C-alpha cells in the first residue's frame, strides 16, 4: 500500500474518529434494518422478523469492533483506549497503584543509581571525538602477566616515540601536579588540582577549546607559563567570564597566564581524577624543587596515551613503538640501572577509549558490580511482588473478565487490556525511578567518598541512564505483567464465571511467588548481616594506637612558596604554635597519616646489625618520617630505648626506631645496632609497639620510623600531617589551634582537618556503604515479602470464610482456626526460608572479598537474618489468622448460602 494512502487513512481514522465510527454504525444498522425489512416482507411478524434478522446478522457490537480493527491505526486507537481504561482502573484503587508504583520505582531507581555509577566509573568512554582511536601505554617485564604492567613511564623514550612514531598520529604524557594554590587578581590563593600535560595533549584528544586556545607543542618545548582551565573550574572560580582568558594568575606564587578553557564535560583522561588547571609538562621546572627527570631513562613518572593513525592497527603500532622504545632506552642510558631497564622492560599498548588506568575504577568496579547484583535482586523481588498483587487483582476481576469474554471479546483483546495496565504501571515507575537514580547516585558518591570536595566522577543524566531505567522497567514489567494476564484468560469463559476462589493451580503459583520472595529476602538479609558484622569487626580491631581525642590536619609550606630549609622551619613554627594552645597535650608531625591511604612508603633492608641477608630474603618494611613525640601522641607504647628528640637533627648521627615485628629480625637487642649500609645506614635507638600502618584492614607489618627533621628538603616530597592529642574532645581545640597557627604564620593553611575517629570512620566508607545498601535491600525485601505473605493469608481467609464458619459451627475453637491459617503460611515461609538459606550459602562466596574478620557463614549474621525474617513473616501471617478466629459462624454460613 502506498505510504501516502496509509498516512491518509491513519489521519482520517484518528482525527475524524467520531465520524468514522458513526458511519460504521450507520452502515451496519442500515444493513440490519434492511434484513429485518426483508423478513417482514416474507410475512414474519415484527418481533419474529427482528429476532431472525439479529440471528442472521450476528452480534452487531462485536462486528463494529472488528470493522474498526480492520481499519488502519486500529492498534493505536486501541492502545489509547486501553490506556485510558487502565488509568481509570488505577485511579479507582489508589492504594494498589501507589504501592505497585512505589515498590517498582524504588527497586528500579536504586538499581539504576548503581548502574549510573558503574557506567560513569567502568563503562563509559572518554567524552572526546572518536575515543576508540585512543591507546594507553604501559611497560612491563617481557613475558610478565598482563595484570602486572606499570602505567608510569620514563620521559626520554616517550619523547622519542612522540617524535618518530608514524602509526600513532599523536602521543601525549600527563603527570598530576597535586594540590596547587591558585591566586587571581592578587586575591587570596585558593587550592585547586593541577595537571601537567605535554604539548600534544589536546591535539591528540581532538578537543576544541570552549574559549581562547589550547596548549601547543611550542608552549611545552619552551616551558611557557601558560595555563588552560577545566570548564567546571572556569565556571566555579571565574564565573565563566571570557575576560578570564589572558588573565594573570599565580600557581604556588609562580606567575602564569590563562590562555584557554577546555570544552564542557571533559574531565581528563583518568576517571576519578578530575583537575582544575592544566599547564605544560616542561613548565613544571619552575614549580618544583628538583629538576624533573627528563633524561632518566629508567625513572618512571609520566602517564602516556596516544591515538592510532588512520588505518593503523593496535598490534602494528605496538611493534613500531616498542622498537623505538627499546632503541631510545639504550641511547639514553647513563647508568647500569638504565641499561638493565632498557634490556628487560618492554612497551605495551592497549585500547584506551575508556581513558588511562584509573585507581577509582580498580578499586570500585567489583564492588559496584556487587551492589548492582544486590539491587538487581531487590528489583526482581519488587517485580514478583507486583506480579502477586496483579494476580490477586486479576482474580478479583474474574467476573468482569469472564463477562467480557462471554460477550464476545477476543482473548487477545482482554490480554492486551491487562498488559496495557501493567505497562502503565511500569512506565510510571520508570519515570519516578529516573529521578531516584539521579539523586541516589549523587548521595552514594557522597557516602563512598566522604572527604571529596566535589564529585570525582561526572554524573550528568544522559540517554544511557534513561535507556537503562526504562529497559529495567520493561524487564520488570515482563515478569509481572504477562503472568497474571495469561492466567486470567485461560480456560473458557463459562468455566471462569463459576470459579470465584481461583483454581488450585493458581494458588500454587501464588504460594511459589511468595515463597521465592521469602527466599530472596533471606539472601539479602544475610548479606546485610555479613556487612554489618564486618563493620563491627573493623571497629573492634585494635590498630595499635589510641583513637580518641586526636586531631589531625595537613600543611604544605610549598603552597606558600617556601623552598629548601624554609620547609622544616615552617613545620617547627606550626608545631610550636599548636603546643601553646590550652588543652593541647601533645603535638607531633608525620609523613604518613594513620588510616589514610594517601601515602604508603615501602623500602627494604638487607643489613640488620651483624646480619646481612641475601637479596631474596631482604626485609620489606613500610616506613614513616615522624617528629619527636609521635608515639606518645598516638599512644603507641615505646617498648625499649627512646623516642626521637631534639638531638636528632640533620647534623647528628642518623637514627631509626623500629616496630616490634621488625625488632625480631635482629639478633639480640636491636638497640644500638645498625640498620642498612652505606651513607643511608641508621642506628636503632628504640623499639615501639606494632601498628596497622595505613589501614585498619592491614595486617601488622614491619615498620621503620625516621626523624622527619633529619631529612634533607629534597627527601620531603609529601604534605605531612600534624597530630594533636588534647585533654578533651579533639574537635573542641580546632578553632584555637587554627588561630594559633594563623597568628604564627599567616601564609599557612590547614587542610584535610579531621579527628582520628572521623578518619577511621571514613576509611570504612566502602564497608559502611555496602552495609547501608545491603541493609536497605534487605529491609525493603523483607517488607515486600511480608506484604506478600499477608496478602496471601488474607486472601486465603476470605476464600475459606464459609469453611471456617462451618468448622466453628461444628465446635472448632478460635485457636484451632488460627492454627489452621498459620499452618498454611508456615509451609510457605518454611519452604521459602529453606530455599533462601541454600541460596545464601551459594551467594555469600561472592561476598568473601568484601568481608573482614568473619567467615561468609558467620553464624551471628545467618541467625540474625533468619530471626528478622521469621519475626516479620510471623507478624504478616498472624494478623489474618487472628481475624479468621474472630469470624462469626452465622455470618460466614449466610455468606455461603
Amino acid at each position, binding site marked *: 500500500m502506498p505510504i501516502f494512502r496509509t498516512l491518509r487513512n491513519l489521519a482520517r481514522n484518528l482525527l475524524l474518529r467520531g465520524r468514522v465510527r458513526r*458511519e460504521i454504525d450507520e452502515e*451496519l444498522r442500515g*444493513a440490519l434494518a434492511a*434484513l429485518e425489512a426483508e423478513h417482514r416482507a416474507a410475512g414474519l411478524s415484527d418481533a419474529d422478523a427482528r429476532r431472525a434478522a439479529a440471528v442472521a446478522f450476528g452480534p452487531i457490537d462485536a462486528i463494529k469492533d472488528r470493522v474498526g480493527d480492520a481499519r488502519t491505526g486500529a492498534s493505536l486507537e486501541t492502545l489509547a483506549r486501553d490506556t485510558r481504561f487502565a488509568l481509570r482502573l488505577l485511579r479507582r484503587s489508589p492504594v494498589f497503584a501507589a504501592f505497585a508504583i512505589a515498590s517498582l520505582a524504588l527497586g528500579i531507581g536504586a538499581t539504576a543509581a548503581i548502574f549510573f555509577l558503574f557506567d560513569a566509573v567502568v563503562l563509559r568512554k572518554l567524552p572526546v571525538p572518536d575515543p576508540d582511536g585512543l591507546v594507553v601505554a604501559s611497560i612491563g617485564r617481557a613475558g610478565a602477566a598482563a595484570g602486572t604492567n606499570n602505567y608510569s613511564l620514563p620521559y626520554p623514550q616517550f619523547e622519542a616515540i612522540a617524535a618518530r612514531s608514524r602509526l600513532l598520529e599523536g602521543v601525549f604524557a600527563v603527570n598530576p601536579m597535586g594540590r596547587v594554590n591558585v591566586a587571581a587578581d592578587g586575591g587570596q590563593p585558593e587550592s585547586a588540582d593541577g595537571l601537567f600535560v605535554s604539548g600534544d595533549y589536546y591535539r591528540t584528544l581532538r578537543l576544541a577549546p570552549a574559549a581562547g586556545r589550547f596548549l601547543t607543542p611550542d608552549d611545552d618545548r619552551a616551558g611557557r607559563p601558560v595555563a588552560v582551565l577545566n570548564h567546571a573550574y572556569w565556571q566555579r572560580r571565574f564565573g565563566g567570564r571570557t575576560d578570564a582568558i589572558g588573565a594573570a594568575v599565580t600557581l604556588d606564587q609562580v606567575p602564569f597566564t590563562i590562555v584557554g578553557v577546555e570544552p564542557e564535560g571533559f574531565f581528563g583522561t583518568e576517571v576519578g581524577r578530575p583537575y582544575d588547571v592544566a599547564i605544560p609538562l616542561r613548565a613544571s621546572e619552575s614549580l618544583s624543587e628538583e629538576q624533573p627527570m627528563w633524561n632518566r631513562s629508567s625513572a618512571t613518572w609520566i602517564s602516556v596515551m596516544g591515538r592510532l593513525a588512520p588505518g593503523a592497527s593496535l598490534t602494528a603500532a605496538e611493534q613500531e613503538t616498542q622498537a623505538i622504545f627499546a632503541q631510545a632506552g639504550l641511547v639514553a642510558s647513563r647508568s647500569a640501572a638504565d641499561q638493565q631497564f632498557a634490556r628487560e622492560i618492554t612497551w605495551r599498548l592497549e585500547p584506551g577509549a575508556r581513558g588511562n588506568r584509573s585507581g577509582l575504577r580498580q578499586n570500585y568496579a567489583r564492588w559496584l558490580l556487587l551492589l548492582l547484583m544486590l539491587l538487581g535482586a531487590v528489583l526482581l523481588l519488587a517485580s514478583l511482588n507486583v506480579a502477586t498483587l496483579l494476580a490477586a487483582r486479576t482474580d478479583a476481576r474474574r467476573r468482569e473478565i469472564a463477562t467480557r469474554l462471554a460477550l464476545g471479546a477476543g482473548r487477545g483483546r482482554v490480554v492486551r487490556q491487562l498488559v496495557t495496565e501493567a505497562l502503565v504501571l511500569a512506565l510510571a515507575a520508570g519515570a519516578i525511578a529516573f529521578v531516584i537514580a539521579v539523586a541516589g547516585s549523587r548521595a552514594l558518591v557522597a557516602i563512598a567518598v566522604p572527604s571529596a570536595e566535589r564529585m570525582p566522577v561526572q554524573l550528568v543524566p544522559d540517554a544511557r541512564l534513561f535507556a537503562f531505567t526504562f529497559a529495567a522497567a520493561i524487564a520488570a514489567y515482563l515478569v509481572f505483567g504477562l503472568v497474571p494476564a495469561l492466567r486470567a484468560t485461560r480456560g473458557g469463559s463459562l468455566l471462569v464465571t463459576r470459579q470465584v476462589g481461583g483454581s488450585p493451580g493458581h494458588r500454587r503459583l501464588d504460594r511459589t511467588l511468595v515463597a521465592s520472595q521469602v527466599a530472596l529476602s533471606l539472601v539479602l538479609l544475610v548479606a546485610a548481616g555479613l556487612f554489618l558484622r564486618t563493620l563491627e569487626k573493623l571497629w573492634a580491631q585494635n590498630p595499635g594506637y589510641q583513637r580518641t581525642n586526636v586531631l589531625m590536619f595537613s600543611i604544605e609550606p610549598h603552597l606558600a612558596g617556601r623552598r629548601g630549609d624554609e620547609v622544616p622551619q615552617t613545620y617547627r613554627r606550626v608545631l610550636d604554635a599548636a603546643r601553646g594552645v590550652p588543652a593541647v597535650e601533645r603535638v607531633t608531625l608525620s609523613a604518613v597519616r594513620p588510616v589514610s591511604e594517601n601515602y604508603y612508603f615501602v623500602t627494604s633492608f638487607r643489613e640488620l646489625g651483624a646480619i646481612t641477608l641475601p637479596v631474596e630474603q631482604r626485609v620489606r618494611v613500610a616506613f614513616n618520617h615522624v617528629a619527636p613525640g609521635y608515639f606518645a601522641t598516638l599512644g603507641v607504647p615505646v617498648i625499649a630505648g627512646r623516642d626521637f628528640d631534639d638531638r636528632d637533627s640533620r647534623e647528628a648521627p642518623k637514627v631509626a626506631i623500629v616496630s616490634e615485628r621488625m625488632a625480631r629480625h635482629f639478633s639480640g637487642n636491636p638497640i644500638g645496632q645498625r640498620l642498612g649500609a652505606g651513607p643511608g645506614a641508621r642506628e636503632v635507638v628504640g623499639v615501639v609497639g606494632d601498628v596497622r600502618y595505613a589501614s585498619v584492614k592491614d595486617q601488622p607489618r614491619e615498620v621503620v620510623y625516621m626523624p622527619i627533621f633529619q631529612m634533607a628538603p629534597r627527601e620531603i616530597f609529601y604534605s605531612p600531617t600534624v597530630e594533636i592529642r588534647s585533654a578533651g574532645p579533639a574537635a573542641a581545640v580546632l578553632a584555637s589551634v587554627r588561630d594559633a597557627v594563623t597568628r604564627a604564620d599567616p601564609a599557612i593553611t590547614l587542610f584535610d582537618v579531621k579527628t582520628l575517629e572521623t578518619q577511621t570512620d571514613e576509611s570504612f566508607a566502602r564497608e559502611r556503604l555496602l552495609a547501608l545498601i545491603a541493609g536497605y535491600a534487605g529491609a525493603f525485601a523483607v517488607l515486600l515479602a511480608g506484604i506478600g505473605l499477608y496478602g496471601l493469608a488474607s486472601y486465603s481467609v476470605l476464600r475459606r470464610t464459609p469453611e471456617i464458619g462451618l468448622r466453628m459451627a461444628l465446635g472448632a475453637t478460635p485457636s484451632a482456626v488460627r492454627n489452621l491459617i498459620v499452618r498454611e503460611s508456615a509451609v510457605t515461609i518454611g519452604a521459602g526460608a529453606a530455599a533462601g538459606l541454600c541460596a545464601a550459602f551459594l551467594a555469600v562466596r561472592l561476598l568473601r572479598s568484601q568481608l573482614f574478620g568473619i567467615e561468609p557463614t558467620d553464624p551471628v549474621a545467618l541467625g540474625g537474618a533468619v530471626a528478622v525474617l521469621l519475626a516479620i513473616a510471623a507478624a504478616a501471617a498472624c494478623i489474618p489468622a487472628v481475624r479468621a478466629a474472630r469470624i462469626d459462624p452465622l455470618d460466614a454460613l449466610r455468606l455461603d448460602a
Partner: protein
Amino acid sequence: MAKGDRAALLQGTLDLLILKALSAGELHGLGVSRRVEQITGGTFQVQPGSLFPALHRLEEAGWLTSAWRSSENNRRAKYYALTRTGRHQLGHETSEWNRIALAIARALET
C-alpha cells in the same frame, strides 16, 4: 458443503469473491453478500462479521471506493464500487487463483 465449512473461508478467497461480486457494478454491503452467494451458486454465504471488516480493509487498500446513496427501498446505504487499482487487482488475483487451483487439482489427480 456443510455450514461450518462455509465459515472457514480463506481470507484471500473472500477478498477475491468481493472484488468479483463488485466487478459487475456497485453494490451495498448486503448486496455484496447476496451477489457472492448467487455467483457461487450458494456455496459461500458471507456473514456480516466477515463481510464488513473485509469491505473496509479493501477500501483502505484503495481497491474499493464507497459513497452513501439511497437504496431501492429509500434507505440510506453505503455503496461500494471497484476502483481502477481494484479492477487491476481482480485480474491479478484471478490469474493467481487459477494457477493455484490448477496446481492443486493436478496434485490431487496424481
